[in-house]
Structure formats: C-alpha cells, structure tokens
C-alpha cells in the first residue's frame, strides 16, 4: 500500500506510465527476438484483423438499438463505397438521429 498524499500519488502515476510504455514497446521488442518466418507472419496477419473484431465484440454486445443501427449503417456503406469516413459519419449520424426521435 502506498499513501496517495504528497509524492506518493506521483510515484503511483509514474509506475503506471512506465508499465504502459513498456507494453507499448513490448510487442515490437518481443517480435524482434522471434525469427520472422511464414508461420509467424501468418500469426501476425491473423492477429491483426481479429484484434479489431475483439475490440468490437463488447461494443456491439453492449450497444443499444441506436448503437447497433450505427454499426449496421457503417458496415453497409463500407461494402458499398469502401470509404471509411462516410461510413463512420453515416453510422454516428444514424445513432444520433435514432436517439433524437
């Protein structure tokens, strides 16, 4: 236990910042120790897309109707135009509109 009075709080924050920075550097550092071959490249490629999906899963699960509508609109426009910015804009506007009415 560390007291949060005076310098204690700053020490805690510094430790958190250090841990987070090491995690930001860690992925690239660890990959530097592993020889890059087809399997490792396949792993990285598979991981890239599924991290995106994994971030999305709780957002989609916890979203209300307006939120799910936003995701559907974004997906629809991405399939049609393949342009992220209009797709996101339509999704956000859809959620805002649904909640307004």
């Amino acid at each position: 236990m560390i007291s949060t009075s005076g310098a204690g709080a700053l020490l805690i924050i510094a430790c958190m910042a250090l841990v987070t920075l090491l995690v930001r550097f860690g992925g690239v550092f660890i990959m530097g120790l592993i020889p890059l071959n087809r399997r490792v490249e396949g792993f990285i490629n598979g991981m890239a897309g599924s991290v995106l999906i994994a971030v999305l899963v709780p957002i989609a699960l916890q979203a209300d109707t307006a939120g799910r509508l936003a995701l559907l609109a974004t997906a629809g426009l991405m399939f049609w135009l393949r342009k992220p910015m209009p797709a996101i804009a339509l999704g956000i506007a859809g959620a805002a509109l649904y909640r307004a009415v």
Partner: protein
Amino acid sequence: MSTTVAPALSFVECRRGFWRLLPLSLFVAAFGAAFGLAAVQTGLQPVEIVLMSATVFAGTAQFAALDLWGAQVPLVPLLVTTLAINARMLLMGATLYPWLALVPPRRRYASLITLSDANWAMALNDLQSGRNTLGALVGGGLAIWLTWLAGTLAGMVFGGLIADPRAFGVDMVLGCFMLSMALAGRRTLRTVAAWIAGGLAAWAALHWLPANTHVVAGGLAGGLVGALWLERGQ
C-alpha cells in the same frame, strides 16, 4: 510484408495523419471528459489528473486506477491491472513489427509512444493496403493524445456541464471506426476465419475470463488461425 522499404515518417506524413484522426478524436475527448470528472470526484489533485492523462494515456486503465484509488493505493494490484488492461497493446505493436523492423530502433520505439486503438488501426490499414507510412501512427497518436488531454481538462473544469455525448452518437465512434477499418482491409476466406475465431474467443473471454482479457484472447485465437492456415504462395 510486401515491401522492404522503411515506411515514411516525415513531418508532412505525420501532419496528414494528425488531421485524418482529429475528427475521430471526438470520442476520445468525450471519454477524457468523463475521466476528468470521475478523477475529480475520486479526490485526485488536479496536477495528478493531468499528469496521469498525459503520461499513462490509456483510458480504461486510468478508470480502473480510480476504482482502486483511496488514501492508500495497493501498488502491485494496480500495476497488474494496468498491465492486464493494456496487454492488447502488445498484440497491436506486434502486428506493426514487419514494417517497424525496417525503421532505425530509436524512431521505431519513439513512434510507439502514443500507440492506442484508433491510430494503430488506421496505421495498420495504411500499411496493409500499400501506403507505406507511419503518419497515422505518429501524427494520429498526437491528435488522440491532445484530445485526451483536452477532454480530461474539460471534464475537470466543466464537469457535469458537458451535454450527454450519447445524444450525438459519440459513444459509437470507436465501434464504427474499428468496424470500418476491419472491412476496409483485404478480405480472404482465411482472414474471415481468423475474425470468426477471434470474435468467438473474445465473446467467450467476456463471459468466462477476467475482465479486459477479451482483446488478447481474440487476437491470439485469430493469430492461431493465421499461423495454421497459411496462404498459398505466401
């Protein structure tokens, strides 16, 4: 993976990345305002709140710190929680390795200082689709860092005066953005299989594993699919 040329990291590229991600940073500002307000209510000193947002720069971990905050803080549990919540950054950093390996070490690590969900996703999308630049990672990271800090300050100063961001759909910005980034990439049967494995693993982790492990679980499951199912001629 298609290139042997180091990705560009010029001022112009970073400035472009900054402006591309700034509009999306709206949700970061809203999230930051919520953090600033919650931190004031938890009893942190203003300078501590600003320092935490500036140096830790990881929203979910910062909210978790508030849960443990009191006259005394258990340091080791707090750091373990920080590590667990931010472990997804290990995976995100690793996915950038094939390109970052071509950059000199000092620039390689410096460009990771502001690594977070949105600028990672945009940078990876750029690199995978042949735009050989780290502008979104560095410039976009700066945009998110600045809006995170500005949001924190706004939450500290104005607190409850801020209108409900949900009314404007701001809570769905990250979700819509991540979805658009996933759909913008090249889709093969193999990548879709990795998505399904990752999505199921994330869903299972949400139900049965400790909180905040779902991104790591999903990423590793998708990675396994990618390692076992190699593309022909790759």
